[in-house]
């Protein structure tokens, strides 16, 4: 989380909650990703011990909201780098994580995260 699972906004510097509008469908979709409770069941269920489902949920929660936009690229890259550094395995798309997740976090977030990474590399 400390590698970028946040928006850099100090207490007291926020603008009014309604300044940036977020459509209902987008808010719901961000909520789907935000529902992750960080329980680790996905990592435990994965034969590669990959934490991709957890990381992708955090990245995609913030990537879908305008508040997460400014740090969108660095967040994706840094969080994945941190995950690799901590020795989690890489994802081979077995889907075991989704089946084990109590919060029904979907593997589609992993695909989206990969796209985020590609995009950020392509543009930098």
């Amino acid at each position: 989380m400390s590698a970028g699972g946040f928006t850099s906004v100090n207490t007291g510097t926020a603008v009014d909650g309604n300044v940036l509008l977020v459509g209902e469908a987008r808010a719901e979709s961000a909520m789907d990703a935000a529902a992750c409770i960080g329980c680790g069941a996905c990592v435990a269920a994965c034969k590669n011990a990959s934490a991709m489902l957890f990381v992708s949920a955090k990245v995609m929660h913030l990537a879908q909201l305008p508040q997460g936009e400014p740090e969108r690229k660095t967040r994706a890259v840094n969080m994945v780098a941190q995950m690799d550094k901590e020795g989690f395995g890489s994802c081979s798309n077995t889907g075991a994580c989704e089946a084990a997740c109590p919060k029904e976090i979907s593997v589609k977030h992993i695909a989206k995260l990969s796209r985020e990474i590609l995009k950020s590399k392509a543009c930098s």
Partner: protein
Amino acid sequence: MDSRIPAGDLQGKWTRCKFENKLVAPANRKKFTVIVVGSGLAGASAAATLAEQGYKVKVFTYHDSPRRAHSIAAQGGINAAKNYQNDGDSVYRLFYDTIKGGDFRAREANVYRLAEVSASIIDQCVAQGVPFAREYGGTLTNRSFGGAQVSRTFYARGQTGQQLLLGAYSALMRQYGLKHLELHAREEMLDLVVVDGKARGIVTRNLKTGALQTHTADAVVLATGGYGNIFYLSTNAKKSNATAAWRAYKRGALMANPCFTQIHPTCIPVTGDHQSKLTLMSESLRNDGRVWVPKAKGDKRPPSQIPVDERDYYLERMYPSFGNLAPRDIASRAAKRVCDEGRGVGSSGLAVYLDFADAIRVQGKETIETKYGNLFAMYEKITDENPYEVPMRIYPAVHYVMGGLWVDYHLMSNLPGLFVLGEANFSDHGANRLGASALMQGLADGYFVAPYTIGNYLGGTKLAPAPLSHEAFAGTLGDVKARIALLSKNKSGTSALEFHRNLGKILWEHCGMARNDAGLKKAIGEIKTLREAFWEDVFIPGSETNMNSELELAGRVADFMELAELMCVDALERKESCGGHLREESQTPEGEAQRDDSKYCYVAAWQYQGEGQPAKMHKENLVFENVKLAERNYK
């Protein structure tokens, strides 16, 4: 005892206070260390903000991660006076609703400030990425909650507490990543270190290794949550406890209104003796469910076989105008009464039916499913019964404590340097808390109040160095060691859990929703006897020097044993009914709770006087300059 309420008009108090506060220059802030115990909403938000400001912060939690704090359990939502619905809400209205909801037993100035900063909380959380529910057009949406006629509750699906905590946790982790704060997970605070009359440190026990350690600081923040678990059966997380607050009390901090607890009417009841955690069901269910029990005592027929004319829809009978929507405390007391009469249902006899059959017949199953589908599913998962077919069984349970450590307007205890935030303090909810206000208060304290007032303390106080070599640290550490040794002395005996269960029964019976003089006196006697038995007979398997959940529990139960007595003493002294509490001697001719403003319009703040000595009460008189004290009436 000085509550340090700023002078002048209500609206200007907080602005003036902030202006008059001493400041610490940004470059000097890193010279000050602040310990924050607790990483729930109140603790995490305070720690993150203090670190952003530049102070050195050390965070302690007994959980394995800060994001596991009990705040995560809150489902309903968080209030704020945004008036986004254009329905006449305002800071003043939120202030008024909270004062009235608390039955006029809270400080006007504190509550006004709470309402005043509430709007900033929502902005802050939105900026952090908390996915609050939205309208199709993209604006934030609201729902209504009890005790208010406006729609001001913000929510994130059924996981508001979790999402808010994640927001605060992400701010905390950002500061951790920047190396602005230290994180000590799985460390339980077991005592407070007081040097020259000021809070200067804590003693902790590492829950993995059993190692005891001392920590020094310039100020100590307790954001350690509520003690509702003292009742054994409650909706609180199993580990929630009173130890941090109680240790501070025994070091001189005042404990205020300890008998003020909130009981929630719609919980899933206990099945068997071994369940220890109750699940809260949203109160919104009472909009469509009808509450009933059989008319006859001991009627054990299944509900479908009890004809309508043999059922007692007691809320509709007793409160014809409010019916099944009678306020929390009234509904709770009525449920306990019918069960005490022997008309309770289920195997334990400690439950009443909440029946949706009529609603389903009239509105159709689909409508009910859209409204309550997730709650029905949760109920079925826990009880294995389908509420579309058989009535739910519900029972009241302890949910929240309004009582807590006494704090002044700066959220500082009478012990200088000790700040208390969130559910752990007594401040804003008087004798009864409105729904969706605890999350608001925790975040108000942590994001927007304490960071200013702690700065004022640090900037305006001469603090002598308090190195770990100071005798106070060794002394306090010695006390902690001696206590653990005393707890673990028995080679056989009764488990702490058993004692806890018995303590809970005494409190629930005599210091729950209805109290009377004789019952409270009896409870005090019973608690004393139980406490003696505890110290004589408690048995803790395992060792002190590694992970030992029995030892953790025993320490917490030992503190509950002492706090329970103070709760009863406090309840005994308050001979009025107020908030959710019925004092049986103080009722209207119709049997409703009767407040007594002429005698009890004060905060009772108790001071420890030494082992075996009765605590001493200090009264903080509550002065109402803006609102008029009014009767509560729900007939």
